[in-house]
Every structure is written in C-alpha cells, then in structure tokens.
C-alpha cells in the first residue's frame, strides 16, 4: 500500500506520479518536526557525501540544500561556477565523473541549460538532484510550494491526486522562461488543483494551454476567484528582448498592487519563489503582509530538501524519520 521511492535521481516533476509527490510531502512533514526541535540534526546521512554543484548563481536554493544535507549529517561541499573548472573549459560530463570518483553519493546541480541534470544522471551512478535547469524544471521548488499550499488548503484524507482538488491557483509573470512555473504546473495539476497562468502574450505563449492549464492575459479576470496567487520574478533583461516595453507598463498590467489586492479573497495565499522585485511584480507591503507565505516557503524548502536527500539515499519514508 505505501509508496516507495524507486528513482536514483530527482530530475523533474513531470514524470512523477501523485503518490510519489505525496511520499516526499509526508517525509518532509516528519523532517519539519525535526527542525522544530532544539537539536535540529539527525544522523540519517552520516557517512554520505553530497555535492552542491551550482553552475548558475543562487543564494536561497544553494543554502537550503547545503543546510538540509548538514541537518542530515552528510558531508557537503558546495561548488560555485566561478570557482569551478568549467571556467577552464572542463565539460559537465568530466566534472561529474571527477566528483563521482571522489565517492560522492548525491550531486545537486543548478545549471543554465535545460536537460543538464538528466545528461549528468544518465552518465553517473551517483544520484542527481535538479536544483533548476534553464527554463525546464525546478522540482524541489514546486514540492515546497505545494507543501506550503497543502499546509493551509490540503485535503489530507483525499486520494493522492485530489489533495488540492477544487483549489484555484494563479501563477503570474514571466511564464515562458520560468522553470518554477513549469514544475508547479505539473505538481499542482497532479494534486488536482485548477491552475491559471497569467502574463503578457509575449511571456505566456499559447502552447502552455496544452499542459492542462488555463491561460489569461488579464490579471483582473483571475484575482477574485484565486485561492493562491504565485508571483514570479520579472527579469529586467526581458525588456531588451522586446518582450515588454517597460517595467512601469508591466506593473500597470500585471503587478499585484494594493488596488488589486482589495479585490482578492480575504484568505488568499500570496506566494513568490524569490528573489522578489519589491514594487514590480508585487507591492512591497504585500510581500510582508499577513497573506504572504514567502518566508514560510523558504522554511518549508529546507524540510523538502531533507526529504529528497533522505529518500534518494535509501531512506524509507516518514516512518523511518521518526524511528
């Protein structure tokens, strides 16, 4: 009856089934309890080696993975692209083989090219965790986002694919270039939520409809009904690519302003994967307001990453954590 983790790697949400997502969530819930203790460390990964290989800048995700590994008592090494041999022209394959030759058990990869974690996973027997690859996926982000939504809105007695049934979620912003959006589209859909993507036509191509979501180019049509609004970072460089004319125009059309917030449900949950642009995709005070769960997302991220590291190294699920 109980689901068992049977993958060497965590590369994407798309191939997972709802029960596997549920297993990670349940395991994370057990670790969240551990994190509330005064001694926040368990010996689950003692003797294991975890490498954080970040070929693209990141503060939050890298720190979160590093702390997660440390809380599990693993030996963890973090490598950033500036200090790595990529600068000297070494290929990803060779870097991976070298890290594996040092008996690494898990390699966590953040990379600007979509598919890079899969490329590495196919060539290594070490486990690979995708910490964000190009515009493809960022699976642990979607796992922590859905975990956070489940804490407030989850139907805990429902079947695995119905835990978020009936919930209306809007994801707003630069969808086209967002791996967070893609992973969340799959994760939320697999748990039964109704997802609407919102953004300018240039950052939200029609093809997204075929991923089983609704799309809208008018945020005001979507706000009133949404239980959850997830805002995505707007990258300034998109203006140079002619994808929208100015940040001012973006704010006027898609920003979550105080004016718009008044039309939202009183219990609306406001999410953002960070880093936020205060005053652009979200009014500054709303990011800090009572409806915002932006920092809870970060806290939950640690528990999710502990769960993923634990399951990938042979951990048996939530029961194992308690024992």
């Amino acid at each position, binding site marked *: 009856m109980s689901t068992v983790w049977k993958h060497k790697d965590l590369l994407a949400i798309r191939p997972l089934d709802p029960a596997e997502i549920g297993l990670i969530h349940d395991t994370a819930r057990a670790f969240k309890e551990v994190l509330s203790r005064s001694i926040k460390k368990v010996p689950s990964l003692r003797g294991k080696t975890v490498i954080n290989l970040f070929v693209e800048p990141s503060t939050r995700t890298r720190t979160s993975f590093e702390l997660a590994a440390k809380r599990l008592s693993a030996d963890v090494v973090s490598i950033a692209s500036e200090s790595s041999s990529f600068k000297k022209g070494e290929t990803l394959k060779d870097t991976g083989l070298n890290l594996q030759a040092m008996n690494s058990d898990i390699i966590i990869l953040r990379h600007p090219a979509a598919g890079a974690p899969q490329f590495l996973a196919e060539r290594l027997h070490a486990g690979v965790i995708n910490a964000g690859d*190009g515009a493809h996926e960022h699976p642990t982000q979607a796992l922590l986002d859905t975990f956070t939504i489940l804490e407030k809105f989850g139907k805990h007695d429902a079947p695995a694919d119905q835990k978020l049934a009936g919930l209306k979620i809007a994801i707003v912003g630069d969808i086209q270039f967002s791996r967070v959006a893609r992973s969340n589209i799959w994760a939320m859909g697999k748990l039964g939520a109704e997802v609407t993507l919102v953004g300018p036509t240039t950052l939200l191509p029609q093809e997204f409809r075929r991923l089983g979501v609704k799309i809208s180019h008018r945020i005001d049509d979507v706000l009133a009904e949404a239980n959850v609004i997830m805002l995505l970072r707007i990258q300034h460089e998109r203006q140079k690519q002619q994808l929208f004319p100015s940040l001012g125009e973006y704010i006027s059309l898609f920003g979550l302003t105080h004016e718009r917030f008044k039309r939202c449900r009183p219990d609306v949950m406001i999410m953002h994967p960070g880093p936020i642009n205060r005053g652009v995709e979200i009014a500054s005070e709303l990011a800090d307001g009572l409806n915002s769960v932006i920092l809870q997302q970060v806290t939950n991220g640690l528990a999710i990453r502990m769960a993923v590291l634990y399951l990938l190294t042979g951990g048996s699920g939530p029961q194992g954590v308690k024992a």
Partner: protein
Amino acid sequence: MIPSHLKKLSDAPVESICLHGGRIIDPANKRDEVGDLYLHNGKIADPNQLPQGVNWRTIDVRGQFVTPGLIDLHVHLREPGQSAKETIATGTRAAAVGGFTTIVAMPNTTPHADSASTIAWILQRAEETALINVYPTGCISQKMAGELLAPIGSLVKAGVIAITDDGNCVQNNELMRRALEYTKMFDVPIFDHCQDYNLSAGGVINEGYWSTVLGLPGWPAIAEEVIVSRNAMLSELTGAVIHCQHLSSAGSVRIVREARQRGIKISGEVMPHHIALTDGDTEGYNTNFKMNPPLRTKRDQEALLEGLSDGTIEILASDHAPHCEYEKEVEFNYAPFGILGLETELAIFIKTLIEPQVLDWSDMLAKLTINPARLLHLDKGTLTPGKDADVTVINPSLEWTVDKNQFQSLSRNTPFHGWELRGRATHTIVGGRIVYQS
C-alpha cells in the same frame, strides 16, 4: 565491402560489366523494366551496339533494382580543417556504402571555401582520396560572414557547381539580391540555408509544445519561412535560380509551391530526418536529435510529404553533418547542430516514402538522380547510353539494422542507431569502377 586496396577512385579498374536481370529504373528516360545493363569504357553501353570481343563481367542482380548512381547535393565533408569529424576519404566511403556516386560538398570548412585556392585544394584532395565523384561549392560571402561578396567568378572557374553560405544564412537582403544577380552570369544555382537570425535567436528545437515542456529555446518555423519568402521574391526580381536547402516546415512548402506556380525559379529539398522524426523525439535531450533546422511537428511532416508527392519538392538529400562524439556529448543547448546521413539515407527514404506509398520508386529515384543533376547542370543522373557509367544497384527487400559502429564515417552522430530498416545499396559503380559491393 569496399575493396581494401582502394585508396582513391582511380585505384578501381574500369570494367566491362553486365548487370544481369535487374529491374532497371531510369526516371530520366521514364524507363522501368527488367533487363540487362551494360557498362563499357566508363560509359553506359548501347545494348544494340555492344562492342565485340569484350570479356563482360556479369553480375547477377535479379530481384534487385538498377538505377542511375545516386546524387546527394548536400554533404559536409569537413575537409579542409575539421578532419577529426570527417575527411573526403571517409565521407566518400560512407557515401559509397550508402549507394551514392556523386556528392556535393558544402563550403563551411576551415578555411571557408571562399577562394579559388581552397577549391583547388579540395579538388586535388578528392583526386587523391575520394572514392566517388565530389563536387565542391563556394561561398556566397567572404568567410560566410554575410557582409561582402565572395569571388564567385573565380570560384566557378576553379570548379564549384553551386554557390552557398550553407550553415549560415545571408541576412542582408541587398547582399542576397546582388549575389543572385551576379551569379546569373555563371550558370550555377545559389543554395540558401533559410534562417532569420533574429526570429530564431538562440533556438535549438522547434518552437511549440516540446520546447515549452522541455524548456529549450524555440527555433520557430517562421524564421525559415520569412527567408524562403524573401528568396522567392528575390528570385522573381532577378530571374536567378534559388534552391532552398533543408525545408522543414509546412509554411515553407506552401511558399515554394505558390512561387513555382507563378513560374519563379525556386526549388527545395527534404532531408530524411525531417520526415522520419518529429520534435517529440527530442524529449530525452539526446543531442543526436539536434540539427538545423530542427525537427518539427507531425503537421509539418505531412506537408513535406505532400510537397514531395505533388512535385513541389524535387530533391532529396541528407545534410550529412558529422561531429565528434565528445562534441555532441554535452548539454543540449551547447551541442553543435547536425547528424550523419549518407549511410542511412536511402533506407530512411524507403521507409518514409516508398513503404507508405507517398512516392513510387521512379519518383523517389528521380529526386535522388536526375533532378539534382539538372539543378547542378551535371551531365549525370541517367542510364542513357553514352553517359557516365555511374550506377547503383539496390536490394529493396534486404533487411538490416543500423549499427553506428559499422559506419565508414569518422563520426557516430546518428539518431537512427538500432533502427531496423529495409533496402540497401549492394553495388556502387562510379564511371564503370566498382567501389562498393555488399
């Protein structure tokens, strides 16, 4: 096998050959009948005026097809300068095994084929190492940079049979207009790799469902279609012949069809991979499915087949593009575009065109023989007596499995490894010289 002593075409003796009992398919002469074909002194012999006292080497080809030697007008031989990927020696061996007697080499070598001296070097190297006929092309623009016209007259004098910047696309419409006007003096066609760089910027797979799911930058069909349209308009303006390479999209087929109906001298070609595979095959991020233009959708595939069937597209070719394994074994975004073609091309066309009855054998072979010969003003591609004895014998029912490790090519970048295919060349004869027999 390729006889082991063959280091170059002239190492094989010119033989007097009787290909006995095969089905002779010669689209240029609308001939399709069982019979004997005689080759003598490097030419096709007239069966009614056979010379006396000749000791014919008779080869029993009953049950097989005897066709004009296949021509592939879109091949990257990589020499000079990129000989870790392929050489004229290995590329022509791959072609011989694939049934090709004539190939046309693209100019994106190192250095670029934009000077008479480089063309002379290629021709000499071919003389010394090629197993089949090799014709070079020359660049449209100096260093293929799309800025200044290459010395097209000198290139033609040196021996090129087409002008192209293949691999690159001239973005400057004024330069393209002048290239077409200028080249009209020399009776050679211009080939164009149709790609608008602004519209396709950064793209590595077809823009659509799969680029959305995989998060890979999209290379939209419109980036090809804009340039195909431009080429039709410039050809109409100048009266020059323009050949659009590796058409991949439904829109391109429609534009070429409409232009040809209006009498514009525009043509197109289709590659095996664009009708055998779709963008969905890129799902595993396997870089052997990365080529330029990219694999497109089922709908595009159907339009390409329709264009082949109704005659809009008269030419089949491979875009044989060897790359070293280590170059391809990188992140999808960073891998070079291109896959091998020559050794699987014929069987993939049989699978995609003959088996589903899109074309009959005669129509398909015309697109691999007489049609490219006519575009290139080559006196080849037929079995007319007196013409060069370039002949391919094909066993249409031979079943085989693609094994990249058996390839003659120096490279291994094929998406078809392990495919079970039907139909294969059994004899490749160039000017009466047997360079390959299975």
